[in-house]
C-alpha cells in the first residue's frame, strides 16, 4: 500500500501543473450539464415519465457528468499508449512493482486530482445553479459510494484491457472509439436506461457498461429498491472480478509477446 500511495501521490503532484486544464474541465462539464438540464426541462416539464421528473433528471445529469470525469478508462489507456510508443514500457516492466498495480495507482492519483479540482467545483456550482436532490436514504447513499467504487474499477479494467490489446495492434485509438460508443449508449451517461425501449433496456441490463454511470446514479435517486441493492452491487462485483481475471490472463500473454517481439 505504501508503494501504491507513493505512485498515486506522484501522479497527483504531476497533475498540479495543469491548473488551466482543471478550469477548462469545469467549464466543459458545466456546459454538458446545462445542455442536459435544458433537454430534460423541455421534454419533462412539470410531469413525470417512467416515474421520473425533471428535478430527478437534473440530479442525474449532474452526478452522471461528475462520474464521467472520474472514470479511469482514458487515463489508463493513454498512459500505456504513450509508453508503448516511446518504448518506456520496458522500464515499467522491470520495476519491482507489478505493472497493473502501478497503472491503477497512477490512474487513481490523476482521478483524485481531477475529483478535487474539477469535479467537486462542478458539483458545487451545478448544485447551486440547477439544484441537486438529496440521496433517497442513508442506505442508498452508502450503496452509491460503493457503486462509484465499482464504476471506477470497471472503467479501469476496460482501459487496461484496451491497453493490453494495443500490445498486439500497437495503438489504442480504435478501442477508445469503439468502446466509447458502447459507454455512450449502454453506460447511461446521458440517457438513463429506464427511458430505453423494453427490448434494448433488457440488453443493456445484461451488459457491464451500465455500472459506469447508470447504476450509481439510479441507486442515489432510489430507483433501485433497498432489497435489490445488495444483488445489484454483487452482480457488479462479479463483472469487475471477471473482467479483472480476463485482464490478468491477457497481461500474462502480452508480456510474453512483448519479450518475443523485443527478441
Amino acid at each position, binding site marked *: 500500500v505504501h508503494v501504491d500511495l507513493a505512485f498515486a501521490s506522484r501522479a497527483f503532484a504531476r497533475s498540479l501543473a495543469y491548473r488551466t486544464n482543471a478550469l477548462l474541465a469545469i467549464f466543459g462539464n458545466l*456546459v454538458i450539464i446545462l445542455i442536459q438540464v435544458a433537454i430534460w426541462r423541455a421534454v419533462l416539464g412539470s410531469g413525470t415519465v417512467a416515474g421520473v421528473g425533471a428535478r430527478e433528471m437534473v440530479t442525474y445529469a449532474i452526478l452522471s457528468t461528475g462520474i464521467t470525469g472520474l472514470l479511469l478508462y482514458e487515463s489508463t489507456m493513454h498512459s500505456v499508449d504513450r509508453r508503448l510508443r516511446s518504448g518506456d514500457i520496458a522500464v515499467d516492466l522491470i520495476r519491482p512493482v507489478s505493472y497493473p498495480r502501478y497503472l491503477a495507482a497512477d490512474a487513481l492519483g490523476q482521478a483524485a486530482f481531477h475529483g478535487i479540482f474539477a469535479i467537486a467545483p462542478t458539483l458545487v456550482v451545478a448544485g447551486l445553479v440547477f439544484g441537486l436532490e438529496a440521496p433517497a436514504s442513508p442506505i442508498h447513499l452508502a450503496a452509491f459510494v460503493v457503486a462509484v467504487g465499482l464504476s471506477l474499477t470497471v472503467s479501469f479494467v476496460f482501459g487496461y484491457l484496451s491497453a493490453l490489446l494495443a500490445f498486439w495492434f500497437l495503438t489504442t*485509438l480504435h478501442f477508445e472509439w469503439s468502446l466509447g460508443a458502447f459507454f455512450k449508449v449502454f453506460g447511461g451517461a*446521458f440517457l438513463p436506461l429506464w427511458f430505453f*425501449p423494453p427490448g434494448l433496456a433488457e440488453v443493456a441490463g445484461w451488459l457491464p457498461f451500465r455500472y459506469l454511470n447508470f447504476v450509481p446514479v439510479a441507486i442515489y435517486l432510489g430507483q433501485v429498491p433497498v432489497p435489490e441493492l445488495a444483488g445489484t452491487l454483487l452482480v457488479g462485483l462479479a463483472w469487475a472480478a471477471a473482467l479483472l481475471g480476463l485482464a490478468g490472463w491477457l497481461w500474462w500473454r502480452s508480456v510474453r509477446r512483448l519479450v518475443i517481439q523485443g527478441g
Partner: protein
Amino acid sequence: VTLGLFLRFVRLRVRERMEYRGAYLLGIGAQILGWGADYAVIYLLLQRFGTLNGWTWEQVAFLFSLNLFTYAIGASFTFNPMTEVEDMVADGSFDTVLVRPLDPLLHLAARRYNVGYVAHILISGGFLVWSAGRLWVEWGPAELTYLALAIVGAACLQAAALITIGSLAFILVRSGHVFGLYYALWRFLSYPITLYHVAIQWLLTLVVPLAFVNFYPAALLLGKEGAVLPSAAGMAAPFVGAMALLGAYRIFRLGVDRYQGAGG
C-alpha cells in the same frame, strides 16, 4: 497552379496514411461507431419523447449532421495547422512557412491537410441525405442551391473559428486551451438552440455566431421558428460564413506580421 499543388499535397497525405491501410480502415470503422453512438442516443431520446422543442428525430438528425458535416470539411483544412501553430511559433519552425512561395495560411492548410475526417463525412453525409429525404421539404432548385450555399458558409465559419483561435498563438504563449473552450461551446450546436437560455442564444447568434452553422439554416429550410432572430436570418448564413473566414484570414495575417516583427 495553387489548386494543382494542393491536390498533390492531399495525394501525399493519403499515401502517407495508406502505409498502414489496415489501421486506417479500422480507425474509420471505429470512428463511425463512435459517432453512431451519438446518433443512437438522440434517436432513443426522441423515440421516448416524440419531439424536442417541436423538433422531430429526423429534424434533429438533420441539424446534428449539418454541424458534423461542415465541421469535417472546415477542420480538415485547419485543425492540424492551427493546433500546431502554437508549437511552431514557440520553437521558431514557423520561419520555414514564411519562406514558401505560397501564402502562409494556404500553405499550411494544404501541407497539413487532414485526411482523417472520412468517418465524419461518411456518417454525417449519410444521415444528411437520409434525413433530407424524410423531411417535409419540397427540395426544388431554390432549396438545394440554398443548402449547398449554407454548407459552404458553415464550413467557412467552422474553419474561421479554428483559424482565429490558432492565431492567438502569435499573441499568447499558451493558447491551446482556447480550443477546449471552443469545443465546449460547439456542443451547444447538437440540439436546437431554442432549448437554452436567451443569453446563450444571443451568444451563439452574435458573439460566436455558431448558430449560423446549422440552427438558422435548418430552421429556415424546415419552416421552424427562429431563436432570438427569426428563421429568415438563415438567408444570411452563407454571407456570415464568408465574412467570418475573411475576418479570420485578416487576424491570421496580423498575427504573422507580429511574428515577423518579433523575430527581426
